[in-house]
């Protein structure tokens, strides 16, 4: 069975380490915050200028002046800090943020990522994604393995305008987990019940399968 969005988020959450500063992008990455393993303390950075992002407010306690980068109302925690947008990206470029999780439209087997524009059709802008991928040491991309038309999003070469070059290290899709290596996408884990053959069939980029690939534990 392919993973659902919450299961993808849950698998990513297992990559969190105690003491990490983490930036979670919009969409599936945001869900990671709901699955932080017990005993692991992480501090969430939101690039609109907040370190130590808390959960959504209780009904009636929303504050229009307190949102995350997805424009959702959030709360502060003891120890939170607020800063301007230049300071926010200073900590991102200076690699103070330990892990960045973001979505993508396409990823290529050399680690390029495209996520912000479909020429002539959809242009939302890159927001903070270009700054994040250009600087972060540790980037996990999470996305569905194929698009709505059933075409692979793990490609030899991205067809859409790039967000960053050679920057993606790991990818988690509904079908499995992959490491970007010089030889291509190395399959490290399969979603429960998903075969290597199915993943091969749905991956356009170079896929590396070494020995027995274990099933993901959730």
């Amino acid at each position, binding site marked *: 069975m392919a993973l659902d969005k919450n299961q993808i988020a849950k698998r990513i959450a297992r990559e969190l380490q105690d003491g990490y500063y983490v930036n979670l992008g919009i969409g599936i990455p945001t869900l990671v915050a709901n699955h932080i393993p017990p005993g692991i303390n992480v501090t969430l950075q939101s690039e*609109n*200028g907040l370190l130590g992002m808390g*959960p959504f407010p209780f009904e009636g306690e929303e504050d229009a*002046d307190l949102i995350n980068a997805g*424009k*959702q109302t959030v709360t502060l925690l003891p120890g939170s800090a*607020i800063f301007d947008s230049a300071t926010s990206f200073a900590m991102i470029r200076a690699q103070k943020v330990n892990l960045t999780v973001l979505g993508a439209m396409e990823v290529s087997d050399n680690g390029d990522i495209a996520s912000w524009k479909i020429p002539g059709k959809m242009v939302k*802008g890159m927001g903070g994604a*270009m700054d994040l991928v250009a600087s972060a040491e540790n980037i996990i991309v999470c996305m569905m393995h194929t698009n709505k038309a059933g075409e692979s999003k793990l490609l030899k070469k991205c067809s859409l305008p790039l967000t960053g070059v050679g920057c993606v290290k790991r990818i988690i899709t509904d079908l499995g987990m992959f490491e970007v290596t010089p030889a291509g996408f190395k399959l490290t884990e399969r979603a429960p019940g998903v075969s290597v053959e199915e993943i091969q069939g749905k991956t356009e980029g170079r896929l590396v399968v070494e020995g027995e690939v274990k099933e993901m534990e959730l």
Partner: protein
Amino acid sequence: MNMDKRVTDADAALKGLKDGMTLMAGGFGLCGIPENLIAALARNGAKNLTCISNNAGVDDFGLGLLLKTKQIKKMIASYVGENAEFERQMLSGELEVDLIPQGTLAERCRAGGSGIPAFFTPAGYGTEVAEGKETREFDGKMYVMERWLRADFSLVKAWKGDTEGNLVFKNTARNFNPLMAMAGTITIAEVEHLVKPGEIEPDHVHTPGIFVHRIFQGKNYEKRIEQRTVRKRA
């Protein structure tokens, strides 16, 4: 000290703003936007404006109001996904758009307000953002040269300000406001609470008054929330 920068209201604050000028507007989404000044700008009717702001508002609020009236000729922003009219004007070619990475936008404003004409950032290297720009290697990594941004008028919103122009922002409504305040030839601050000098602790000032030229207390703040997300009480 006698540096009273008070003006009566948003309309008076925009004195001298002309067609074709470049404006900065603070805010992230609809959080921390200068609501009173944007409304006054729509009344003012100035046209062919270049607007620098992280986002472009929504269809019926924020900078979206000025898109509707076609006052904006060019928009410089990082993310415009919440505004259907914007997307329509951009795809049809009516609106000139320069999309730039958010951290680069923030730093270009900061540079403009700091007397630094250019800097190098890794953001956008190898993408269409870097096309036509100087790139250079530093310590084994490639960077793109980006220029400062400055504005004829910077429109910012603060929570509290004194008549000398010292500003304090609240929570994430800070965002681009302090950076844009620094980069304006004329910077106008609208505040929710206008106080006398001395009522803000010098240690608590976020934007020193030297960057602010005009200040007034705004009214009827709507402070719209784009994504109202809540949790249930246990």
